[in-house]
């Protein structure tokens, strides 16, 4: 038997012999967040004996200790709805239905009823392996170490604490440099007799470096002192994980598969969200993601996401599955599958499957899938989807309708954003049918439809003809963007014009995170451009650039970006210009050493940084700029 532990972030293995485990169960669930609690509960309701271990004092994870009490995306259905109904009927708390304490109470009731043994303040410090099968864990209860044997173990720790004790291949953080953007401290305060929330992000940190995690969390808490004029009711005890750890699973869900409609034949459950990215460093993202998020400007399109059975199972490891935030997804899917409801429903589904595996003595992937489907559909947690769908889901319209139903006056700015919108607008991506949208200020659906159209040559011809023959600037520019996306260099002259004009026209496809035209054009010039484009691109990096009008007209607005602590337009132009130059240098085999030296000079000192963050201190933009500088210097490093 091997005891595998994590020491200083490294897997350490020791040969050992355990004949008498201190405790045994069918299903051991580690981490009592939303996913963990519902996994433990559903496994127990299937008839399995279940132990649930939690590091902290309280169960519920981010929905309790992190103060994340609301929903926005994530599909409905499953056991939690019964809890929500009880919460709505409950008049004990100041706000009905959305109090974190209510969630904890409902979960406690649920776990007591289903007979789950809940052990708080317990750490798992090692995994027992027999060959490639995990047969139990070594835990610590604050006083002593003890062993638990389990048929199957669920890692629901959100940061993949158990996965990290294995040799499975792991992927950390954002692709640019492995960093993380956790959401920081959510506080609850009262105003006019209502309980409200405020989020203070912790900025970029390495979640898995305990010193960095501690220092950044403390700074995020310190920063909250500005809100003390309100009555603070509660401060979140937990920091959430965004873009955390993923790993190589028996199956890995990738965003390009999703965007092109590929779906596993063994779906664990369906999640529902947009491909949300936090921060603003889109220039460092991969091409397919940029095609969707930047060039087609479809950031807030929601997608039904088929999470496969194999994407919760680490490759070549038996007896261990994951539930919650740590899954075998690429970074883009991982940031999408994170919503409260999706976490809860995933937990419930994993619990059912884990119990079936444990009780029938088979591996997780070998369960009777039809029987599993029947059970989770009966529970209602599977999700009402049978194929991947895309839609605009207008949450502002949803908000507006709710306010009207409650007889309250809605916030004017949200009312405007919801104007003339329906809540759910399904998208089919048909180039012929969508083409007319290129004449509008929301052309994203048409651009993406052209990109994925099987009739690419015909589309190219049509786009080119329309582009050169129209006098309508909006239409011409949109055709050029679509033409650029289908990799036709004939788009270049118009794309160059957009950048030359420093065109700061923002599209309006989304309820937030909209892109502007020069940024999109720069992104495409980087892919299609030649040495001829370099003077235009270097010009953007010159000292005079910041004086241009385009950098001084945009007001802070959630419609465009989530941070208002930077010169957003300049940050975007600068990062895309750098990336475009790098791509052209690479493609044309130019002197990369010369470019690296240029970037070293450009970013030496804080001149550029000051243009971005102006006089603000401790800005997330500062960290993101530094992240980009490190990234571009690493890319161009000729050594």
């Amino acid at each position, binding site marked *: 038997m091997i005891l595998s532990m994590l020491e200083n972030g490294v897997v350490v293995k020791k040969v050992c012999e355990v004949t008498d485990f201190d405790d045994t169960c069918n299903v051991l669930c580690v981490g009592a967040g939303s996913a963990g609690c519902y996994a433990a509960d559903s496994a127990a309701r299937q008839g399995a004996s279940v132990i649930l271990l939690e590091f902290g004092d*309280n169960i519920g994870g981010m929905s309790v200790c992190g103060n994340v009490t609301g929903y926005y995306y994530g599909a409905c259905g499953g056991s939690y709805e019964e809890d929500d109904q009880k919460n709505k009927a409950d008049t004990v708390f100041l706000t009905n239905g959305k109090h974190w304490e209510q969630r904890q109470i409902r979960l406690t009731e649920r776990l007591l009823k289903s007979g789950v043994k809940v052990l708080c303040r317990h750490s798992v410090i090692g995994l027992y392996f027999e060959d490639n099968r995990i047969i139990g864990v070594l835990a610590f209860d604050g006083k002593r170490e003890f062993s638990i044997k389990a048929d199957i173990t669920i890692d629901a720790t959100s940061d993949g604490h158990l996965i990290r*004790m294995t040799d499975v291949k792991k992927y950390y953080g954002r692709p640019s440099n492995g960093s993380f953007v956790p959401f920081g401290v959510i506080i609850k305060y009262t105003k006019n007799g209502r309980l409200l929330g405020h989020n203070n992000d912790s900025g970029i940190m390495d979640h898995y470096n*305990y010193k960095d995690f501690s220092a950044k969390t403390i700074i995020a808490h*310190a920063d909250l*002192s500005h809100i003390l004029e309100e009555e*603070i009711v509660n*401060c979140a005890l937990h920091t959430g994980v965004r873009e955390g750890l993923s790993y190589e699973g028996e199956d890995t869900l990738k965003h390009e598969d999703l965007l092109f409609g590929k779906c596993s034949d063994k779906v664990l459950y369906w999640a529902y969200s947009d491909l949300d990215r936090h921060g603003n460093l889109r220039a460092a993202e991969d091409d397919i993601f940029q095609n969707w998020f930047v060039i087609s400007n479809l950031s807030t399109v929601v997608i039904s996401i088929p999470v496969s059975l194999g994407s919760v199972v680490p490759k070549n490891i038996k007896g261990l599955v994951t539930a919650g935030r740590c899954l075998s997804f690429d970074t883009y899917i991982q940031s999408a599958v994170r919503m409260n409801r999706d976490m809860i429903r995933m937990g419930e589904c994993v619990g059912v499957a884990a119990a079936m595996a444990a009780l029938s003595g088979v591996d997780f992937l070998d369960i009777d899938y039809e029987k599993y489907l029947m059970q989770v559909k009966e529970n209602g947690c599977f999700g009402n989807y049978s194929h991947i769908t895309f839609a605009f889901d207008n949450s502002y319209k949803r908000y507006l309708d709710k306010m009207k139903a409650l007889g309250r006056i809605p916030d004017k700015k949200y009312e405007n954003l919801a104007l003339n919108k329906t809540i759910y607008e399904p998208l089919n991506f048909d180039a012929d049918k969508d083409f007319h949208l290129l004449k509008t200020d929301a052309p994203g659906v048409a651009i993406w439809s052209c990109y994925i159209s099987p009739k690419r040559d015909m589309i190219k011809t049509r786009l080119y003809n329309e582009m050169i023959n129209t006098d309508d600037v909006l239409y011409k520019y949109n055709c050029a963007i679509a033409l650029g996306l289908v990799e036709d260099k004939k788009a270049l002259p118009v794309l160059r014009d957009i950048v030359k004009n420093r065109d700061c026209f923002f599209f309006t496809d989304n309820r937030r995170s909209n892109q502007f035209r020069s940024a999109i054009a720069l992104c495409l010039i980087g892919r299609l451009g030649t040495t001829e484009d370099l003077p235009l691109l270097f010009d953007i990096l010159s000292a005079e650039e910041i004086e241009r009008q385009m950098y001084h007209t945009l007001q802070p607005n959630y419609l465009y970006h989530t941070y208002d602590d930077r010169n957003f337009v300049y940050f975007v132009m600068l990062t895309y210009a750098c990336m475009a130059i790098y791509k052209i240098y690479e493609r044309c085999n130019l002197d990369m050493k010369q470019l690296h030296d240029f970037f070293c000079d450009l970013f030496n000192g804080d001149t550029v940084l000051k243009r971005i963050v102006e006089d603000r201190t401790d800005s997330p933009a500062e960290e993101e700029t530094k992240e980009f500088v490190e990234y571009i210097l690493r890319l161009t490093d000729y050594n």
Partner: protein
Amino acid sequence: MKIYNTLIIGSGYSSIGYATASPETVICEEHQVCDTGFCLPLRSFRYNTYTPKTEEGSQLLDLFNSLSLFGTNEQNTNGFEFAMCKYIAKKQLEVLLKCRVVRIVRQPDLIYDVTVHTNEGLTHLFAKKVLDMSNTSDERFYTVLFVCDDIEKVKDKLLSAYCGSQIESAFYAGRYALHIPAHDTDENRIKLEIYEKWCSLGIDAKILYMSPVFYGAENADKLCDCNYDNPIEAFEAGYFYAKENDK
């Protein structure tokens, strides 16, 4: 291998007082937030008046005052946690969050090898001294912060339902703190019990917040926040203790 002068378990005000006075101190806190002694359990409603005796204590008081934490009728209890973090950041004290001590072994060279469980798994910290300043006591309380228009109508019902409890005004108008003694160590179960009892009373009072545990006074030999009713008093106790011990 870094060797700290002192490793402290628990991040209360006494701990940061100690760390302020003694360089090369590291504080291990098993929660993801600091100040689990005063702020989180809403113990700060109970502070007494205390005049700082040191320059550092005065600085901390100035910080509290700048955030309006003392002296008016509308203090923010949770503000104490933000204030502490502000102080830690400003003084660059080393506090490790989500850091649980698993083992302490004294080596032949008299240095302590402290195994802690963190986000990086098991990690070793080394120190010449180890001080446990965490709050632990047989006397355990939970506080319910609630909103009520007429306290007189609900007071008796609450006090008789929750045996041995006390009610006090909680700074903001119409806010009260109900301190409930409890022996169970499972916070989930305790909250459920408190809730179920509250439901059965049918009173016109709504819960805003149910606090984590706070401890009654520990034996006098132990330096920890639960022995003090004022955070600055606790801070200075830690500060003086460090000065005395570092001589």
